[in-house]
C-alpha cells in the first residue's frame, strides 16, 4: 500500500499556530481599537491579493502586472450593483467574483496569445483599457469618481461600530476562504500539475499536462478572487475613482514586492511578505515617495540575492513548511483481514 503524506512535524505545528492566530484575529473586535481593526483588515486584503498573484505568477508562470484590472473591476461592480441596482453591498461583493471570472475569459483568450514577458505588458494594456472605460461611465462619476451614498452604507448596519465589525469579519473570512481555496487547489491533482508547471513547463507538458488549460483556469480563478477582494477594498474606502481603482502602484507594485520579498512560489511567502511590508510601511511612513523607492530597491536586492525570498531561505535552511503541502510517498505493509 502506498499513500501520499502531505504533512511534516513543522506543518503540524504550523497548522496549530495558524489556528491559534486565527482565533485571536477573529476576536480582534473585542480587544482592538478602531485603528487596529482598519489596519488588520487592510493587511488581510494584501495577503489575499499577494496570495492570488503568487498563484498566478509563482505557480502558473503567468507574470501579470495588470491585476489592478480585476481589483478595479470588482470595486466598480460593487458600486454599480449598490448604486444602480440597489443590491446589498455584501451580496454585491459575492457577485463581484463571478463578474471578474466572466470578464477574465475573453481577456485571457486574447492576451494568452502574447508570450512570456510580452504577456506582462499585455495585462497592463487591459488594465488601462478598463481604467479608460470606467472614466467614460458618467453614471458612476466618470473620471472624477463617486462615493458610496450614505443610504447604502446605513442600510448595511444600523450603527457605525456594527458596520465596522461586519467589514472586519468580512475581510478576515474572505481572506481565509481564498487562502484555504488555494491550499486545497494545490493539494489536489491540479495542484500537482501546477507545481510541475512551476518547476519545469516543458517537462510538465511532456507528462501529459494540458498546460494551456490549467493556466487559463488559474487566470480565471485568480480574477474571481481578485475582483471579490477589489469590491471589499472599495467597500472599506467608500469612494472609488478610475485612478485609485486601477492603480498599478497600489494593486500591483506593492503586491509584487510583497510576494518577491516573502518568497514567490510558496504559499507562506505572501503572508511573510505582507508582514514585512507593513512593518516597513509603519517605519517609513514619513518618507513619502522615498518609501516606494526603498521598497523597489529591497525587492530588487532580494530578487538578485535570494530569489526564493525570505520564506524560501527559511524553508530550505530548516526544511520547514507551515502548511501541509508537500507530497511524500509512504510505504505501508498491507494488512489483509
Amino acid at each position: 500500500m502506498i499513500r501520499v503524506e502531505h504533512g511534516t512535524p513543522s506543518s503540524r505545528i504550523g497548522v496549530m499556530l495558524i489556528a491559534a492566530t486565527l482565533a485571536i484575529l477573529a476576536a480582534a473586535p473585542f480587544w482592538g481599537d478602531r485603528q487596529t481593526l482598519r489596519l488588520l483588515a487592510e493587511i488581510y486584503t494584501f495577503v489575499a491579493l499577494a496570495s492570488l498573484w503568487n498563484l498566478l505568477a509563482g505557480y502558473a508562470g503567468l507574470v501579470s502586472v495588470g491585476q489592478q484590472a480585476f481589483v478595479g473591476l470588482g470595486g466598480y461592480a460593487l458600486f454599480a450593483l449598490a448604486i444602480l441596482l440597489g443590491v446589498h453591498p455584501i451580496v454585491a461583493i459575492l457577485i463581484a467574483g463571478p463578474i471578474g471570472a466572466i470578464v477574465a475569459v475573453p481577456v485571457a483568450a486574447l492576451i494568452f496569445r502574447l508570450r512570456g514577458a510580452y504577456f506582462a505588458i499585455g495585462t497592463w494594456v487591459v488594465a488601462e483599457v478598463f481604467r479608460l472605460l470606467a472614466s467614460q461611465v458618467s453614471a458612476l462619476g466618470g473620471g472624477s469618481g463617486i462615493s458610496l451614498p450614505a443610504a447604502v452604507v446605513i442600510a448595511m448596519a444600523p450603527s457605525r461600530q456594527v458596520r465596522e465589525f461586519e467589514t472586519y469579519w468580512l475581510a478576515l473570512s474572505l481572506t481565509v476562504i481564498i487562502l484555504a481555496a488555494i491550499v486545497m487547489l494545490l493539494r489536489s491533482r491540479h495542484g500537482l500539475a501546477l507545481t510541475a508547471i512551476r518547476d519545469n513547463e516543458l517537462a510538465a507538458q511532456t507528462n501529459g499536462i494540458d498546460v494551456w488549460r490549467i493556466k487559463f483556469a488559474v487566470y480565471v480563478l485568480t480574477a474571481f478572487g481578485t475582483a471579490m477582494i477589489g469590491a471589499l477594498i472599495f467597500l472599506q474606502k467608500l469612494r472609488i475613482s478610475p485612478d485609485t481603482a486601477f492603480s498599478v502602484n497600489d494593486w500591483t507594485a506593492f503586491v509584487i514586492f510583497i510576494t518577491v520579498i516573502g518568497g514567490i512560489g510558496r504559499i507562506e511567502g505572501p503572508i511573510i511578505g505582507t508582514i514585512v511590508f507593513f512593518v516597513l510601511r509603519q517605519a517609513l511612513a514619513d518618507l513619502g515617495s522615498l518609501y516606494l523607492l526603498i521598497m523597489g530597491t529591497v525587492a530588487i536586492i532580494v530578487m538578485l540575492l535570494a530569489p526564493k525570498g525570505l520564506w524560501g531561505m527559511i524553508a530550505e535552511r530548516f526544511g520547514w513548511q507551515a502548511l501541509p503541502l508537500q507530497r511524500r510517498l509512504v510505504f505501508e505493509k498491507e494488512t489483509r483481514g
Partner: protein
Amino acid sequence: MQWLNIILQGVLIGGLYAMFAAGLSLIFGVMRLVNIAHGDLIVLAAYVSLIVTQAMDIDPLVSLLLVVPIMALIGYALQRGLLNRTLGDDLLPPLLVTFGLSIIIQNGLLELFTADSRRLQAGAIEVQAFEVLQGVWIGVLPLIQFAIAVVVIAGLQTLFYRTAVGRAFRATSDDQSVAQLMGLDTRHVFAMAMALSLAVVAIAGIFLAVRTNFDPAIGPARLIFGFEAVIIGGLGSMWGTLAGGIILGVSQAIGAQIDPGWQLLAGHIVFLIILAVRPQGLFPKVTG
C-alpha cells in the same frame, strides 16, 4: 481636408511611437529581455535634457549631442551592473527587476523634480509650419521628428545587418553559448545593445519633451505605446515597428477627433483587434 490633416498628424506622431518601440524591440531581439522600465527611461532622458539645456543654455535639439551619450553610458552600466545578473532561463527575475527599476526611477524623479509638469522650449521652430496642400498644414518640428525616426529605424536596420556589432547582436540572439564559443563576450554584447537602446530612448525622450508636457508619472504609458507598436508591426521587424507606430498614432488621432476621451482608448482597441485577428503582427519576422 480636416480628416487628411488629422491622419497626417497621426502619422507624424507615429514616428515618435516607433522610436519608443525601436529600443524596446532591439533589446528583446538580442537578449529576450522586456524592459518594463523602458518608458521611465524615456522620461529620465527628458529630465536629463532639461538639466543640460538649463545648465548650458542650449537648444533641446543641440542637447541631443550630450544626452545621447549620457543615456548610452547609463544603459551600458545598467546592463553590466544589474540586468546581466537577471538573465537566464527564468523569465521572472528580469521582469521583476525592471519593474522595480521602473518604480525606483519614477519615485526618484518625483523626489528630485516634484510632480510638476515640465516642457523643453525649442523656440520659434515649435510653431513653424507650412502648407502642403490647401488647408493641410505640417509642423516643422513634427516633420523633423518623423524624419529622424525614419533615419533611426534605417540606421538600426543597417547596423543590425551590415556591421560587425550587428553580427554580434544577431549571433548572440540566435545562440548565446555558440556566440560565446566564437569568442564573443556576451555580457559586453548585451551591454552594447542596452547602450544602443538607451541612445534611441534619449532621442525619443527629447522629442517627447519638446512636443508635450511631461512629469515623472508618464513613463508607463510610453512603454505601452512602444509595446503596442512592436506587437502591431510584428516582432523583430524594424520597418514593421515604424508601421505599427504609425497605425497607433493614426488610430489615436482619429479617436481623439471623435471624442477626446477616446484618444488613448482607440489606440488600445486597435491593438487588441490586431492581437485578436493577427497575433503575429502585420509584418512579422521572427516567431516565438
